[in-house]
């Protein structure tokens, strides 16, 4: 295809992506360099019968004017990145110097907002992803063994948790595990503890969110693996059987290696989606015990009346860097595949 034709064909999609994905990233970076204006203070002397006292007041008009002139705020350089709510370099140094054991150091790190969110996001991603891979494969094999008439309906049933948006899906689960809901109330009865609530402890909240995450993404890996299972050559399976391999051995040594390319595809997709975990935290109102990076950004932007653009920008950019860093192995591999093909 000629360069010119290519250009006209790609123009709409490319301009949409540049305008609304690439430029916003630049905009995020720019706004992370500024912080909100301080209020303009005027010191005036008020003189009474007992002498003069200086009073400080806010010059609303001047503050408003300043905001009007430079809506971004005043330049702060990389200051926002290193403050307490983000990378918190100073606080980490202090914590390292002051804490006598790794445990206390860890607790102090955990209490820093950015690291707190990062720890939850990474834990969520790296628990949900492997769990979904293994369980998805197990279900795919199970469904593949089912009689033909049952396969379609089981896929139908499985699709719902995946296609329903996380906000709605987690609400549905939330109403069940809530203290008054069917699962929550049953658990309270079993442990005979009417105050037991999944929302009350950090560990239980994390488990609840992770269980939700598995429930939501399992269908994706199941269906991909199920499709992959249809392509396993019968001859190889038969050969394994003739050689005396048991079902389990066939599974481990024939089927799993055949599905390996699929595993890396599913892993990539799962990591991308799990890293943006956000809506379940809103639905479960779990923010007291679990915050993800996306939730922190959302919260900064929602700060009523006075959104913290700089803070949101800095967290966004750090998140983007983390996402790209985690995707690097896949990107490098795709690049290698491409250069191998073209030479």
């Amino acid at each position, binding site marked *: *295809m000629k*360069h010119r034709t290519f250009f006209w*064909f*790609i123009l709409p*999609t*490319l301009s*949409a*992506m540049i305008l*609304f*994905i*690439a430029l916003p990233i*630049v*905009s*995020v970076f720019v706004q992370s360099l500024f912080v909100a204006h301080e209020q303009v203070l005027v010191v005036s002397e008020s003189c009474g019968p007992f002498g003069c006292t200086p009073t400080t007041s806010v010059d609303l008009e001047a503050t408003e004017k300043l905001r009007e002139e430079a*809506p971004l705020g005043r330049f702060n350089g990389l200051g926002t990145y290193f403050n307490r709510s983000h990378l918190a370099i100073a606080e980490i140094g202090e914590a390292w110097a002051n804490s006598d054991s790794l445990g206390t150091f860890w607790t102090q790190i955990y209490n820093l907002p950015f690291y707190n969110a990062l720890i939850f996001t990474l834990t969520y991603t790296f628990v949900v992803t492997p769990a979904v891979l293994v369980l998805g494969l*197990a*279900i795919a094999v*199970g*469904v593949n*063994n*089912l009689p033909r008439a049952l396969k*379609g309906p089981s*896929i139908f*049933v499985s*699709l*719902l*948790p995946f296609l*329903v*948006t*996380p*906000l*709605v899906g987690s*609400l549905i689960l939330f*109403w*069940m595990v809530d203290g008054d809901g*069917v699962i929550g*109330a*049953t658990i309270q009865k079993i442990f005979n503890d009417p105050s037991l609530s999944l929302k009350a402890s950090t560990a239980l909240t994390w488990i609840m969110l992770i269980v939700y995450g598995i429930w939501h993404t399992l269908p994706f890996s199941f*269906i*991909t693996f199920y*499709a*992959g299972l249809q*392509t396993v050559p019968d001859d190889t399976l038969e050969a394994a*059987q003739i050689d005396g391999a048991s079902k389990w051995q066939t599974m481990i040594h024939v089927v799993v290696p055949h599905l390996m390319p*699929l595993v890396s*595809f*599913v892993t990539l997709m799962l990591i991308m989606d799990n890293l943006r975990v956000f809506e379940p935290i*809103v*639905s479960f109102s779990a923010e007291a015990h679990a915050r993800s990076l*996306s939730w922190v*950004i959302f919260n900064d*932007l929602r700060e009523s009346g006075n959104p913290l*653009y700089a803070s949101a920008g800095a967290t966004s950019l750090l*998140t983007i860097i983390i*996402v*790209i860093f985690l*995707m690097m192995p896949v*990107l490098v591999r*795709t690049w290698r595949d*491409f250069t191998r093909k073209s030479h």
Partner: protein
Amino acid sequence: MATKAQSRMTPLKLFSYTFVALWLIIAAFPFFWTFWGSFKVQADFLSKADWRNALYGANTIAQTGSAFTAEAYRGAWIDEEFWFNFKNTGIVVFFTVVISLTFGTLGGYALARSGFRYAFWILMAALVFRAMPHITLVSGYLLPFFEWNVWGILPTTIIVLVAINQPFTLWMLHSFFKNIPKDMDESAMVDGCTRFQAFRYVIVPVMWPGVITTGLFSFLLAYNDFTVAAMLLSEENETIIPAINSFMGTTQVEGKVMYAVAAVVSTVAPLFVLILFFQRQIVSGLTAGAVKG
């Protein structure tokens, strides 16, 4: 053909059947429970005393005289004007799907037919863009949109959703067009068509299966979107998912949780129908690009 050895019931097989059955129950039960409960009153749906109340509706009978009540739906759709949010979602979804498919087919076709290196780079960039959490992009939109005075209206949200949707659409249609033999459009060009005419008269008639599959996923993205709509739409233009979220805030206080339950069931119902009709396309879309390699 299944041999005797293959159809024998082994412990392993029994285990895998149980496992599948367990999963199917876990996947379906919450939906069934919520659907059933949405026709009850709150005292039954969230019944601490006895979970059987949610099944038989003891309090519902006491309060309304019948075991089923559509009160929650009336409250959500009429009192809280949920139909209005549905209308907004309808507009957003329709335009998002149409525009992103138009852009996506043109771009995906070009990428599939161009062997130049920059085509590969565009696909790589799209993959990275696909991985961006949506909220990071939204934080970049807010200030400029306020400045230009385009915040809060539906067209802004539509174009943002189109853009966010492009990376996925491009990848999917790119791999789809790759499977259409090059010879088809090339022979049309040998016969004197321009590239665009070849696309219009040769490729367009055969591209619909791929476009429908991609369209389903564009639909899901626009229909399910919370992050973008919650941040970029003003209250009077709210779509269903942010509306459910704000229901949660207000109705919890007023003891009208059932309104939110009814809204949730109304939101899931169209998806249910969608899966019923398009299950095959959804499955093939999920695995496109993966299975083919």
